[in-house]
């Protein structure tokens, strides 16, 4: 026991470092909500006074609502489709040995690392050559590329963490594969599925670069913000909108990660 004590001994400087690290990680982002309540169109100290007028004004803008609905639609479709494909993929990867599995998994995980601008322009070129007009559908396909690796990375540890003999038992007891999936597999990986849905929704909801290249006439919310950034007088309302998005994203992701806790450690492998 005594030999372990030096490892367990609290390391004060490191503790301070960790706390400073977390503060620095969050503080820049927190300035956005801080200034969104500031009663001035300039983003600067000293603060002028508390107001919610930027939020109220935002609430009455039709363009914001349209962009919001576009983002929600895309996010919902993307999260469901990516998670469905992710379940198939994760099950195949964990349950079966087949030649070329490693490289194939690496290929599917590529969008995690390769600069998205490359896939963005590649899809843009494909759609334009095929004569497909840019729309929310093209954005959806782009976002699925981004979300699929996240979905699989979220689900993989779930599949790895449960005993395949449970599925075999179900099969032995006479359930076919479909019912085995519904009654055994899905309940076992359910936290991962929920987490994947929530994470994919947020990633899609917040995603910018794919949308930047693939959006047609209907902007998503990040595209709308991007458009507003050019106008200095719009700065406070952009801050208000951003605060709302940040709050929503943080809440959804936190719940998602928390539901899926315990399967979190081995998220990223190799590449």
């Amino acid at each position, binding site marked *: 026991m005594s030999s372990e004590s*030096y*490892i367990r001994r*609290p390391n004060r400087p*490191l*503790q301070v*470092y*960790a706390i400073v*690290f977390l503060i620095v*990680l969050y503080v*820049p*982002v927190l*300035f*956005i909500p801080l200034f969104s309540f500031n009663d001035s169109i300039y*983003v*600067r*100290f*000293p603060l002028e006074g508390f107001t919610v007028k930027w939020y109220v004004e935002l609430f009455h803008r039709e363009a914001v609502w349209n962009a919001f609905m576009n983002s929600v639609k895309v996010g919902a479709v993307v999260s469901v489709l990516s998670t469905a*494909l992710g379940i*198939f*993929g994760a099950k*195949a*990867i964990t349950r*079966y040995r*087949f*030649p070329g599995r490693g490289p194939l998994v690496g290929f599917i995980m590529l*969008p*995690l*690392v*390769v*600069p998205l*601008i*490359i896939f963005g*322009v*590649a899809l*843009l*070129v*494909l759609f334009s*050559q095929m004569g497909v007009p840019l729309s929310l559908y093209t954005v959806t396909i782009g976002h*699925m*590329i981004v979300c699929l690796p996240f979905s699989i990375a979220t689900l993989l540890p779930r599949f790895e963490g449960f005993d395949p003999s449970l599925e075999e038992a179900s*099969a032995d007891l006479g359930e*076919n*594969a479909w019912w085995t999936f519904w009654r055994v597999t899905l309940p076992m990986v359910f936290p991962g599925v929920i987490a994947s849905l929530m*994470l994919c929704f947020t990633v899609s909801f*917040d995603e*910018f670069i794919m949308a930047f290249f693939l959006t047609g006439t209907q902007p998503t919310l990040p595209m709308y*913000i*991007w458009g507003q*950034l050019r106008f200095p007088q719009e700065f406070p309302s952009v*801050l208000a909108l951003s605060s709302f*998005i*940040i709050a929503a994203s943080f809440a959804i*992701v*936190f719940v998602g*990660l*928390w539901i899926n*806790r315990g399967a979190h*450690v*081995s998220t990223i492998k*190799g590449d």
Partner: protein
Amino acid sequence: MSDQTLSGASSSDMPIRRANWFARLIYRSEAARGFALLSPTLVFMLVALLVPFMILVVMSLWTAVGFDFDTTLTTNNYQQAAERPIYGALLTRSLWISGIATVVTVVVCYPMAYYVAFHVHRNKMLWLVFMTLPFWTSYLLRVFAWKVVLGYEGVINSALMTIGLIETPLEFLLYSKEAVIITLAHAWAAFAILPMYVSLEKIDKSLLEAATDLGDGPVMRFLRITLPLSLPGVISASLLIFIPTTGDYITPALLGGPDGAMIGNLIQKQFGPINNWPMGAALSIILMLVIAVICVVFILLTNFVRRRIS
């Protein structure tokens, strides 16, 4: 869905007399079942990743003529990219900026990963969630936050002026390489921690005890046990940050200004205002190739060093 029902035939003991060759293959071969189950995902990725990428390669060999393309294959774009100094300069700068950002991120995040792996015993999960939370949320808005912080009349400048430390705003804060590096390091920190944490967490604590028993102090113990064993995590963290940041568009566009522009901005310009898609395609391919080469060299180098150490 058909995959499910087909592989269903395999796990139930229903005789498959009428089944065709495909069902028999699925029934017999584990590999076939694996492929069948992976196929929806794989087909989607092939159609959405590989096909567009191949078309991108082909397009990079075309030439832009006004609003149309001359589809005779030529390496003109690549020659131009090699000859005109602006392309090379932007590419070098991108690699340089993301290289520094990567080093900064890894150095800053390593102690954090170490702390959570070795010194957090309760609520470890909560720490991990809080460290990775920002990574999942809007990249655009996290970059935008830095614009608010570093801006001409931003948080830092106006705070310093209110206190009275400076008379006029510091201009170098925004629109510089440094602004881009700080923002990149901050934005990717959450991504860097995870792989390093995983490899630190895996280290067998009894090795550390052994080192102590054999007379190593804390510093030697760290240098001889912890650091080498966590090197795989450090390497994958470096690659996970370096590769995507080289092609980053948002950060240099919002915070870079002319001095901090990167290759991603140039690629976007080719597809936007300049409207020379084949050139943009060529630049994307060059970016991919350069990144690939650097990664291979980096991995070979670290493997070599690791073999020399052990």
